[in-house]
């Protein structure tokens, strides 16, 4: 008798087990919907909390966590609480790949919010594509990507440069560009787009120079800039090199009112790190600045400072994207009625949200986000004064360096049209 019931139990167990394995093999979705029934949705949060990049990525992590806790306080998504599974990428692309696999395979999250550098995004991309999962990526980047498993909420080159270059030439009246950047893909792609725009607007570029990432000895380069006869410097320098660059610039007797640095990466973080007196009068183009003078943004800055318990914390572009992309995701889940990667991707297109920096919309064609380009001039208090802003969000063109236009998209809902891409 005893043995018999055991046998039945085991048969039931095996049957159930088979079902479960079968389900697991079809899609991670079955499990996440199982999690939904329990009244929670698990999501992954993947930024570097340690290592060199943690300086910036910690703030992106905090902004994501803040959005999640705000949504939970207001009742969650369709009545379900969001549970964040936070992992540390440790400033190392290989670790990012491992942690992404862990989140997707072991934790079975339907979405991961994360990655800051292009190197880390490229490292996790295969995981999301192979497992049909979804990454929300909050950083401005060089474009040239068309994945159906990533929602890009940061700016692409045309959203940082399309009003910047014409504005420099027409409003500032500067025509001779010295382009300088750190030596990797983002600055090189930005330079490519800049050159197209400079030539189209009747300017000329007289040099295109690069220094290693993290280079902090700017003596020779600034001397070269000084003797080049340029009247504006377009900087795509990133990271701590920015600080050494601006300091050397002033120390060699150059001033921003005669020869302004116009930058695409210098944000509130770098300005605070170099000391604002070195940047006063220079310009940066980003869709978001802490100084945006709207009640919504002031409230956002105050809430962020309270959330991280630091009354001097600064907000910046990638941080704002990290925040609002969680809300875009929430809206897509609510519209879909379920939290599976497929359902979220199918419903994210066209989602709009009133972010701290204004309205943002995810474009269904290429899963990039329409943002409003702005230009700020840095002031003595370390904040930007907005001197120019587009009157509406600009359509994202990840392949603009290769001739993509709004009427001739390379990256569409069908994927990348590689026939149009002439390298």
């Amino acid at each position, binding site marked *: 008798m005893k043995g018999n019931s055991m046998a039945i139990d085991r048969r039931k167990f095996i049957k159930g087990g088979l079902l479960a394995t079968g389900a697991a093999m079809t899609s991670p979705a079955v499990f996440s919907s199982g999690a939904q029934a329990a009244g929670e949705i698990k999501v992954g949060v993947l930024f570097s909390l340690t290592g*060199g990049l943690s300086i910036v990525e910690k703030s992106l992590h905090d902004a994501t966590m803040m959005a999640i806790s705000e949504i939970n306080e207001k009742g969650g998504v369709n009545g379900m609480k969001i549970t964040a599974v936070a992992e540390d990428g440790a400033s190392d692309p290989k670790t990012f790949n491992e942690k992404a696999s862990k989140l997707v395979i072991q934790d079975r999250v339907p979405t991961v919010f994360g990655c800051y550098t292009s190197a880390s995004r490229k490292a996790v991309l295969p995981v999301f594509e192979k497992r049909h999962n979804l990454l929300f990526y909050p950083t401005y980047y060089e474009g040239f990507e068309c994945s159906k498993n990533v929602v890009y909420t940061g700016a692409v080159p045309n959203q940082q440069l399309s009003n910047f270059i014409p504005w420099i030439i027409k409003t500032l009246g500067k025509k001779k560009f010295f382009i300088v950047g750190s030596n990797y893909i983002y600055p090189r792609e930005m330079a490519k787009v800049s050159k197209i725009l400079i030539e189209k607007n009747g300017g000329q570029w007289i040099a295109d120079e*690069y220094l290693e990432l993290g280079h902090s000895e700017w003596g020779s380069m600034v001397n*070269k800039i*000084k003797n080049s006869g340029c009247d504006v410097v377009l900087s795509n320098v990133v990271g701590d090199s920015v*600080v050494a660059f601006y*300091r050397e610039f002033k*120390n060699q007797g150059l001033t921003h009112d005669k020869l302004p640095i116009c930058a695409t990466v210098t944000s509130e973080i770098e300005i*605070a790190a*170099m000391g604002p007196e070195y940047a006063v009068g220079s310009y940066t183009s980003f869709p978001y600045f802490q100084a945006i003078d709207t009640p919504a943004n002031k409230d956002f800055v105050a809430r962020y400072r309270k959330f991280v318990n630091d009354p001097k914390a600064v907000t910046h572009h990638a941080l704002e994207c990290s925040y609002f992309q969680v809300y875009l995701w929430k809206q897509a889940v609510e519209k879909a009625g379920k939290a599976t990667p497929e359902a979220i991707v199918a419903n994210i297109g066209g989602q709009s949200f009133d972010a701290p920096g204004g309205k943002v919309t995810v474009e269904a064609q290429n899963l990039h986000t329409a943002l409003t380009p702005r230009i700020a001039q840095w002031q003595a208090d370390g904040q930007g004064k907005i001197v120019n802003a587009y009157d509406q969000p600009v359509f994202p063109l990840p392949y603009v360096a290769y001739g993509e236009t709004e009427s001739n998209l390379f990256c569409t809902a069908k994927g990348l049209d590689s026939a149009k891409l002439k390298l």
Partner: protein
Amino acid sequence: MLEVLFIGLSLGSVLLLVALGLAITYGAMGVINMAHGEMVMVGAYVTVLSGIWLGANIFVAIPLAFIVTALLGLLIEKLVVRKLYGRLLDTLLATWGIAILIQQAVRLEFGLSFFGIHIEGLGPGLQNVAVPEFLQGAFSIGGAEINRYRAFIILVTAILALLTWLIMYRTPIGTQVRAIIRNPKMAAACGIDVERVNALTFAFGSGLAGIAGVMVSGFKTVFPDMGTPMVVDGFLVVVMGGVGSLLGSVFSAGILGEINGLVASVTNDILARAVVFGIVIAIIILKPKGLFALKGR
């Protein structure tokens, strides 16, 4: 042209600033001190902290950083390095471990960040040091614009090199240090307290690194990892100049700096760095003991 030469000189002076301390610890004691870059970093943080908490400028920070890093060096020598003399690889690993410890201590604010306490000026972020107004900008000599802060660094480096030379060649303790460089056992047999002299030498070398940190903080970014790349440059200078030779370090820093500046002015900095490495490799192959090697028996 004058400007290019000046930039080269300034590059050389920064190299020498970091290498001076190494020339002493590596030269005199045969200790490959991987934590030397962290001493530079600590010196830079002393500048940041004294600026925030004491309202002091970099002139006050120079003696302060020297004292803090010299004491830290003394502590490291007494606790770790002393027990490992003559074991080159072991000291290398041990000091590397110390380097990581110091970095993390700054990043985690000595562990206080675990308790939610934040000390302004510490932590993983980028810090900045205010430079007095009269050291910002440039002045002109003979039509060339000379960067004031770089001129200041050259001046400080020259003073430090001179001071080190005076101590090493014009004081009794310097004589003892040089005796130890030549032959530690013989020096001990002649009645020199090798342990004590070594401890003081290590502290002095670390203190020089601290001053280097103060100077570097004025034009580079201050953050916990900043020292690591500098220690590599420092070793290049010492190895090329000849281990144990102060004059060698001065010359090789000057040569490397000028070559870097000249090549960078005609091509770019990346290529300049490659050329510098190439020259160092060539010199090590041709003169394995460096340009100014001591003759030993």
